[in-house]
């Protein structure tokens, strides 16, 4: 039981990193990206390929994965960022498909559709991570590792959001023309936003691949991009805390029906509920559960004392 809980927690953390990074792109900068799973896949494949060939220290590989994903973020960013709204969404979707297609067909590097299944267990300073061990300790250690990265991601993104940089991103989201006449180089900021978002998505992909130790293009489909987007939207766009809340709701909602396995209900039911959530959210609360502004913790603490004592 505890095992299960930890795995769900691991998944939640993974999706938190992903949703936080997408939130930077979609929520703060206002660029709807539908290829987040592709950035993740680039990170995951980088890790998988380097680990199988060289078995280097994981932290190094992790960093490299992030950087490569971020490089691809820039590559997609530069040509498509001149597009707006729906067009950008579709262009990023197309980019995602292209990445999957290349992964499937570049067999000498990625082993194509069959995927890479013999990734060695990762080692950090000679400690071996074995999250699939039957014992619970190794899972907890992996969980702590991913939690550390989640905290780092959260800290980094919140920090830059509160700075000049973040304000510039928000200005771009609000009004590009006004932003540019305030002296903001919008193309550069958009590319940076994509690069940072892709970096963390790459990190998440890297963590994904050392957890499962086997990856294939099927792990990074369009559906995953949509799920990440749903998390961001459900919580509330442009709000880091909301992204985490969204992951806390969506990820269990995604996996728990599978775990419950209620026999007489057709399995497609989960997916239908998922779709319903999307539609109903959009109709009744499009700003997400929390909206754009952070919850006013001080007021909440004064009123009821059940919430986290943040700050």
């Amino acid at each position, binding site marked *: 039981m505890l095992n299960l809980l930890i795995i769900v927690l691991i998944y939640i953390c993974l999706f938190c990193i992903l949703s936080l990074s997408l939130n930077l792109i979609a929520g703060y900068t206002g660029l709807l990206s539908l290829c987040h799973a592709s950035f993740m896949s680039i990170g995951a494949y980088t890790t998988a390929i380097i680990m199988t060939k060289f078995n280097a220290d994981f932290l190094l590989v992790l960093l490299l994965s992030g950087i490569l994903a971020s490089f691809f973020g820039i590559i997609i960013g530069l040509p*498509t960022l001149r597009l707006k709204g*729906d067009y950008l969404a579709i262009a990023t979707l197309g980019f995602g498909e292209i990445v999957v297609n290349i992964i499937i067909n570049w067999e000498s590097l990625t082993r194509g559709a069959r995927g890479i299944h013999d990734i060695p267990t990762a080692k950090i300073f000679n400690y071996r991570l074995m999250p699939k061990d039957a014992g619970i300790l190794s899972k907890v250690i992996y969980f702590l590792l991913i939690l550390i990265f989640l905290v780092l991601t959260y800290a980094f993104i919140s920090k830059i959001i509160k700075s000049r940089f973040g304000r510039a991103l928000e200005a771009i989201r609000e009004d590009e023309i006004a932003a540019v006449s305030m002296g903001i180089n919008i193309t550069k900021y958009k590319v940076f936003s994509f690069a940072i978002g892709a970096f963390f998505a790459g990190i998440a992909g890297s963590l994904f691949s050392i957890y499962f130790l086997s990856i294939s293009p099927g792990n990074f489909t369009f559906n995953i991009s949509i799920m990440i987007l749903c998390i961001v939207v459900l919580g509330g766009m442009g709000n880091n805390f909301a992204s985490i809340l969204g992951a806390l709701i969506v990820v269990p909602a995604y996996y728990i029906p599978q775990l419950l396995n209620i026999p007489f209900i057709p399995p497609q039911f989960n997916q239908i509920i998922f*779709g319903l959530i999307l539609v109903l959210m959009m109709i009744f609360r499009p700003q997400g559960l929390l909206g754009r502004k952070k919850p006013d913790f001080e007021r909440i603490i004064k009123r009821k004392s059940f919430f986290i004592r943040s700050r």
Partner: protein
Amino acid sequence: MFNLSLQELLQHLINGLTLGAIYALIALGYTMVYGILKFINFAHGEILMVGTFISLAVYNVLCSTATSGMMIIVFFIISIIIAMISSGLLGVVIEKIAYKPLRNASRLAPLLSAIGVSIILTNLAQIIFGTKDQRFAYPYNNDPFNLFGISITPTHILTIIVSLFLMVILKFFIDKTKLGKAMRATSENKRIAALMGINVDFIVSLTFAIGSSLAAVAGILYALDYKAKSTMGLLIGLKAFIAAVIGGIGNITGAMLGGLLLGLLETIGFRLFEILVVSIYSIFGKSITGIPLGLKHMVAFSMLILILLIKPSGILGKNVREKV
């Protein structure tokens, strides 16, 4: 070295035209909705799928009573009509439930809602119709006939004729009738159209109904050759959307052009590209037999990115400047 005979080229041309005609029919739905509501009806592909399955169910039930070949053809036409009506209704219902409340929301909201609808429809169809491929038996003898080494089937001809016919009718409807004018006015400016006494809600519903019923026809034509499946809508829907963008979204003629162009690019264009790659390799003294044809899905998406960069308004679209 090139292995490309004229026959093969012409065969690719026929294949491409058939595929393109289907893309064009679906693209019409996207382009009409985008023209009026300025959002991508992501669930369009799923409406197509539902329409196909309805038609298939009706057709199978009716055909079990058929005694002659002529009756089967009549039943086929009946099933098409029923599918058109029901998927038209489905389109309208979806619009009323999932999109209408979002008309003044941010641009992202209806897109996400549409994705939700698409997930719901796919999975509902899986429950109702099963997850397997289902065959749509030809109502006629589909033996190919040979024309100078190119084989053409009756379905090829039917697909092209039906698509062209429907597109011409639609073009006429939009350009010449009063309702068509109202539609164009609504797509120019909803508020002003409403002030001019146009019932915007009705026009939007009508748009969805027409788009969806065209999609049903496209789905049936597609299923004749490629079978019906609950997940058939997504990829073909996306490609049709790309076709609409290529042609110039919001533009009916553009959708037709884009569809045909994309169909040709995916077949004949990709084959020529392959030959190009092979010959470039051979210049450098390397010999490869070809490139994986699975990459042809990249054609559509690369075209999308390319066209959006070169001419975001599409081939026939008008440039719209943002007023400062």
